């Protein structure tokens, strides 16, 4: 038999959660009777206003730079921290627990909160957005990579200790080659997420194509909104393709 008695209980609990969540979110498909409004709204999106394309591309470049810099600095800082946050490489329990706690603390703060706080000191623009993305990615990549480190094969690490390498060097040198492809794929995923995050940060004044989208939306320039959205979609897809290409070259 595939199902145990306890699976029935699980099913009932799940059904209850779905019901309660629908109540809380006012989930009601009958509301779609007004879907004509949506069609009407979307019809204003076309035709797209291509005269804006050069400016949109310029802002896209800013968004890409924000996402790249934020996630890349996140990787550069998160990578060493991840070795301190992994059981098999941290060397001391105190360091291990402190780093773990630090990483979850940083991770628990959403980028938009970082952004809002930093905006007060740094003013409007992409710089606070880069920092917000970086802080969050230190937390996320630090944790993800520390898990890769913990699941790596301890054999090569032992071999490097046996040749007489220093302990920290033995860990670094034996583990990094093992986890490298997965580090890259995590990084590219976080880069992709950072693009979407930088859009949201644009809404609070973080610059880039997110801010343009928000402004176009608020000023009812839907023919510009549609082109913004199209460009954003293309960027995300291109970054995704580039990521898989790099990863396939590395493996």
């Amino acid at each position, binding site marked *: 038999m595939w199902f145990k008695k306890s699976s029935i209980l699980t099913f009932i609990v799940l059904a209850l959660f779905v019901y309660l969540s629908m109540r809380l979110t006012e989930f009601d498909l009958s509301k779609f009777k007004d879907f004509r409004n949506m069609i009407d709204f979307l019809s204003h999106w076309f035709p797209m206003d291509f005269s804006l394309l050069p400016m949109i591309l310029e802002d896209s470049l800013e968004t890409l730079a924000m996402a790249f810099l934020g996630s890349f600095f996140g990787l550069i800082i998160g990578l060493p921290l991840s070795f301190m946050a992994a059981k098999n490489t941290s060397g001391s329990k105190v360091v291990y627990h402190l780093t773990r706690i630090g990483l979850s603390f940083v991770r628990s703060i959403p980028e938009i909160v970082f952004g809002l706080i930093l905006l007060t000191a740094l003013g409007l623009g992409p710089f606070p957005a880069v920092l917000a993305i970086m802080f969050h990615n230190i937390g996320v990549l630090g944790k993800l990579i520390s898990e890769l480190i913990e699941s790596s094969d301890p*054999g090569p690490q032992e071999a490097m200790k*046996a*040749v*007489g390498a220093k302990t920290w060097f033995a860990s670094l*040198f034996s583990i990094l080659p*093992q986890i490298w492809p997965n580090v890259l794929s995590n990084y590219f995923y976080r880069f992709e997420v950072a693009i979407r995050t930088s859009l949201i940060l644009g809404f609070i004044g973080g610059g880039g194509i997110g801010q343009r989208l928000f402004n176009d939306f608020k000023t009812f320039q839907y023919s510009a909104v549609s082109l913004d959205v199209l460009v954003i979609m293309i960027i995300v897809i291109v970054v995704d393709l580039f990521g898989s290409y790099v990863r396939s070259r590395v493996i």
Partner: protein
Amino acid sequence: MLEIRNITVRYPGMKHNALNSINLTIHPGDFVCVLGKSGAGKSTLIRCLNGLQAPSSGEIIWDGQPFSVLSDEQLRKIRREMGMIFQHFNLIPRLSVLQNVLTGMFGYRSSFKNLIGWFTEEEQAQAKQVIAEVGLADFADRRVEHLSGGQKQRVGIARALLQKPRFLLGDEPVASLDPGTSDRIFSLLQEMHDRRNLQTIINVHDVHLAKRYATRIIALKDGEVVFDGEPEKFKDDMYVFIYDAESYGERSSIRLT
């Protein structure tokens, strides 16, 4: 000379000692094979000898220096004189044969030089020399994932030899290899042992290999030494005793129950 004085190892949470009051002296020129069932303490013994595992009590003395009084740094310097080879080879993935063999020098160089991977012409020539010695001259630039098991173990041996070891440790180096390959690896180990005048200790499951190559057999059972002597003196009854087998050769025969 390596002396093992009354060492006991107990892992946390385990009922029995992994090693129980072991006393041994390894002499220059010894080619020792350590026999025993899985869990008899063979790996623990090997790992104690180069300080990867600290004994719970007792002392290991290398050239008159007891391990327990040495700092981590001094222990590391001893470790680089002890080449070690492993059952699963423990090579660094994604690196070439040459790069893996060069890691054998790591103990003698600064971590900074190791990190950027800067090796002098002479260091590279030494590495190529040992690669040729183990018969992999044509594979120096091949990535290690693409080698067969026997070739991988040859890389492991070359890495250990580049340490210019005085002592060679093997933790079941042929347990994942087929019988013919195992024999060739042992014959290579014997050749290196003789040519470089090493002291060698190797864990092995295969009694035939031990009897063919060892100058001395040590058998462990439940963490204690139950046999220590010349291979000719290791008889079938000893085999039955250490492996809890019903008869000699049981492991290789097919039983119909």
